[in-house]
């Protein structure tokens, strides 16, 4: 465990680079996330924010760079990471997708239970108890026997959050969690995320919801063209950006002409 004066680093990613088909999308991005911190990742389409967050739980394998969790090296691009270590990392770093990706043939309860049974090897009763508790927390206990197709986008995303929480991760990554949801349904997802952040969960969120980021994130990082343009206190960076590029982007998202 590495302890810094300001607190423990939950996640540290250094010099993450990623290319697709010979074109480099990420040009060496680094970030240190403190335990309990919530970092919003902001930036225009094609800036590499989704690729970056997907690198952090190895849904994409970085071509270069390292990832540490609580001071422990869990990924180094110079070595091949065995499938077992990849799974060990994913157990510790949860992911919530833009398109939910709930298991279509499983009910909400089964979606939350499956990995508890298979990965944590919890007993059926324990897994069900924990799943019910988590679904209660995201306000969906009464829908627990429904299939994803019977739930709204906002409800599906809350099940996905519960599914991710079921492994007791150290960090949860959110990749545009509200982009595929109707505006009036977004608020319920954002509320759950805000509660999680306030409850001390370490989180990283790719989002276009500037107001949410200002309110619920501690820091914001702004990516453009695969580079980290700026990182700092969310409210500061997003309220009155000193960087012209960020100012234009934030204004455009807020509808200011």
């Amino acid at each position: 465990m590495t302890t810094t004066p300001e607190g423990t680093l939950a996640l540290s990613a250094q010099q993450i680079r990623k290319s697709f088909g010979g074109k480099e999308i990420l040009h060496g991005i680094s970030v240190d996330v403190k335990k309990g911190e919530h970092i919003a990742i902001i930036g225009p389409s094609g800036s590499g924010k989704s690729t970056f967050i997907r690198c952090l739980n190895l849904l994409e394998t970085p071509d270069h760079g390292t990832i540490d969790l609580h001071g422990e090296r869990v990924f180094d691009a110079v070595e091949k990471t065995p499938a077992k270590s990849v799974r060990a990392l994913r157990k510790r770093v949860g992911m919530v997708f833009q398109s939910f990706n709930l298991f279509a043939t499983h009910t909400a309860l089964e979606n939350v239970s499956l990995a508890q049974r298979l990965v944590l090897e919890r007993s059926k009763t324990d897994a069900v108890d924990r799943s019910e508790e988590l679904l209660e927390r995201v306000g969906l206990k009464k829908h627990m026997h429904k299939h994803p197709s019977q739930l709204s986008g906002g409800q599906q995303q809350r099940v996905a959050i519960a599914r991710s929480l079921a492994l007791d991760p150290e960090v949860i990554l959110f990749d545009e969690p509200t982009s595929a949801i109707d505006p009036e349904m977004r608020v319920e997802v954002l509320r759950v995320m805000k509660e999680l952040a306030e409850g001390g969960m370490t989180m990283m969120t790719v989002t276009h919801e500037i107001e949410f980021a200002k309110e619920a994130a501690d820091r914001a990082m702004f990516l453009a063209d695969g580079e980290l343009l700026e990182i700092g206190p969310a409210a500061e960076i997003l309220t009155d950006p000193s960087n012209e590029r960020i100012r234009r982007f934030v204004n455009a998202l807020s509808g200011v002409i």
Partner: protein
Amino acid sequence: MLEASYVLEGLWITLQMWGGAFLLSVVLAIPVAMLRGSKNPLAKFIGALWAWIARGIPPIAWLIIIYFGLSLGIISEVPVLAAMVGLGIVNSAYIGDSIRSGLESVSNGQWEGAASVALTKKDALFRVVLPQAIPVMLASTAAYSITLLKNTAIASIIGANEMVFYAYNAVQVGADPITAFLTIGIVYLLLTVPVGMFARWLGSRAKRGSERVVY
């Protein structure tokens, strides 16, 4: 006159060839689908080559090649077995496609969702992807099975005593060709009915089964 007892005898052989060829084709189709879906270019090539040869040569040619090949070599006088092997090879290419397209019908997001909660590839396949892919696979497999059933008629050429063989023999000794072939035609037609029902039943069962994965 085509005697009922001959129709039944022929039906029994037809069913044997149909079942045997189907089972063999499924056994062969799994590696074919794996090879074709592989990222390794050599494996992909071998899979594609198999499908091309299996499908490109007419079933009748397969049966004759295998029948005379087997007779000259290992076993002799086994038209039913030769037909099973030949039709099994041909059908394996189609079932391989059906497995592949079933798997491809499941969105990549399902694999990613499974990966994100640290499931192994095997668990992701069996617990998440296959329950969705199997109903899709079964629909096309049922269609191919009906083609396979009708292809068993070709085995009469190499002397398998299935339905067409008896009908043809009856016509040779004076039976009315229209009546004889219409009779066995109706038997083939009736056989296709349960296939459709079976596929639908399996499909609903696969779906229910997947819902019971955890409990």
